[in-house]
């Protein structure tokens, strides 16, 4: 059985470490991958890492505000995905096989 040895309580810091790792994976994906769909998924990963942090700390501090915030983040993330996917689909219709590096119209 992997994971923490028996008899050791899973403390709040474990959750925070997982959240940090998730966030790092997401950030890495956003900076490295060029496929817009994958990048959107990585952004979702980062958002959920933050959600995890919120819930953890809310539990530990006994503050309901952290849990409430998570609900807001979820809603905003849903909206963000909707808009992001719509944009990706619209771009895909105009050009085939697009990577984000091809979209540089707003270069300064």
């Amino acid at each position, binding site marked *: 059985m992997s994971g923490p040895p028996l008899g050791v309580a899973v403390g709040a810091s474990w959750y925070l470490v997982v959240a940090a790792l998730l966030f790092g994976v997401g*950030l890495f994906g*956003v*900076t*490295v991958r*060029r496929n817009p769909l994958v*990048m959107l998924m990585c952004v979702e990963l980062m958002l959920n890492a933050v959600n995890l942090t919120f819930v953890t700390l809310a539990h530990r501090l006994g503050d309901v505000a952290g849990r409430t915030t998570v609900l807001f983040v979820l809603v905003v993330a849903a909206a963000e995905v909707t808009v992001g996917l719509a944009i990706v689909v619209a771009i895909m219709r105009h050009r085939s096989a697009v990577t*984000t*590096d091809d*979209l*540089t*119209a*707003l*270069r*300064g």
Partner: protein
Amino acid sequence: MRELAWLIPLLPLVGVGVLVPFGRRLGDPRAGWLATALVAGSFAVTVAIWIEMLGVPAEERAHVVRMFDWIVVGDLRVGASLLVDQLSVVMALFVTGIGALIHLYATGYMHGDDRYPKFFLYLNLFVFSMLMLVLGENLLVTFLGWEGVGTCSYLLISFWHERETAAVAGKKAFVTNRIGDVGVMTAMFLAFSAVGSLSYADLGRAAQDGALGGSTATAIALLAFLGACGKSAQLPLHLWLPDAMEGPTPVSALIHAATMVTAGVFLMTRLNPVLAASYEWAPTLVAVVGAGTALFAATIAVAQHDVKRVLAYSTISQLGYMFLAVGSGAYVAAIFHMVTHAFFKALLFLGSGSVIHGMHHEQDMRRMGALRVAMPVTAGTFIVGWLAIAGVPPFAGFWSKDEILLYVHAKSPILWAVGLVTALLTAYYMTRQVILVFFGAPRWTSHADAHGAHGDAAPHESPASMLAPLVVLAGLSIVGGAIQLPFSKEMHFLEHWLEPVVEAGEASLSGSWAYANKWLLLAVAVVVAAAGIAAAVAVYGARRVRAVEPRILEDAWRYDAAAARLVGGPGAVAFRAVAWFDATVVDGVVNGVAYLVRDAGGAIRRLQTGFVRTYALMVGAGAVCVLAWFLVRGAV
């Protein structure tokens, strides 16, 4: 009723609003009737307000009509407010009254002109501006009207802009007025920085309770006087007025007799507490400039040949009288003379316009003569105007001129002597004009022959729409003096009326030598006027003496040429230096800031690579930095 004072300037503005889109469709003469009716309407409103004011006690007559907050910036609060008090009602009465008469006259005079509706559009806009000027509750609203009349005078003087001289005259009037405007603007800045308000009430209060220092008050008064010199054509800024005669004659009558030129006198009267709070020499300077201008212009009028130019110089001279009165602390007398002068000078201008109309646009008096036969009504009314300006009792000008001379004598007998000589010259040149135009032998036959193609070349009387205003103004010129009679204290109607407005600056006569001997001074003035008339009759009527019309007076003391040489020579160098400073230093600073921003932007915009992943990396790096900062701070 006083709450409805905003109707007074609004009605002419409605005329503008209607004539801009529909003027051409209304055409000749309906556009003229509309404009006239609106100004007459505003006269009716003014009369109603005046009657209401008569019914309340003197201290409750002043009334402020707040329309809306115009400018609110920090400490500066300027309301678009109208001040309806004794002074502004007097001004509004004669501006709208005489304005309506001149509009009526113009419907006849301008008949057949190609741009007939546009002329009335400008006239209405002018009346609106003038009413804002006199009704303004603070310096800024007055200044709005002040600039408005300046612009309208430009448009109206150069109305016949196909003529080079008219276009140039319009420009000259505008530029000369701008010089004076600088004074008014600076006076406003000073007033605001010293008092923190632009309203006349606050300014007057500050001047009276000593909050306004002597030097500041002097500066404000003199800067306002500079503006007044520009608007009211006093030395050394008088030179636009004679040229402004290039405009149509109703314009000369409206702008240069009845309304715009009196704006300077009005402003000084409005600011009388400030002038009273300034150093002793400031009012004296005003009086000296006024006396100098009065004499200077009167000498020039003696040798002019153009029928309107004589009147133009006469106007400058009479305005000098008003400033002489203002400088002597005789504000009531100044306003009194302003009103009577508006009556008789509008009459004279409109009369000369009738002559010009009847003579087919001949303006040279050397080619007139004996016109009383062809134009009996014009001649009769013109003669009334002549008697009024010459100071013959009991016509209006006699009373107001003597009132001024009385106060001036109390201030300084030397200035009184200058005023007296001016009165002599006034009687002389006006008699000369009347004789040259209406009496003697006709000298216009040659003109008729030369222009035989005209068909009906003989002079003819003008239409009724032009004669009616002449008759009304003649009546006013006869009885106008009745508003302020010297016989007893109770008959000083205008003085009692204006007292609350001018009490701060009004000089007191009681106890002076002049007051004790006022009948003697009166007699002297009458003798002087009679002498002037007699001299002119001897020279031009009976032809006993050769006419003295020296070349230098005909050229107006060559003042114009000298000013042109000064402005063209050393002036041009100075202007170029100022222009260089403006283009290099002032514009340099402004452009420098713009260049700096542009170049910095050019350098920084390279950060925007257009690669989304770069941005993501930046955001990530930023998040790490923020995190690091929190950690470091938490550790310390």
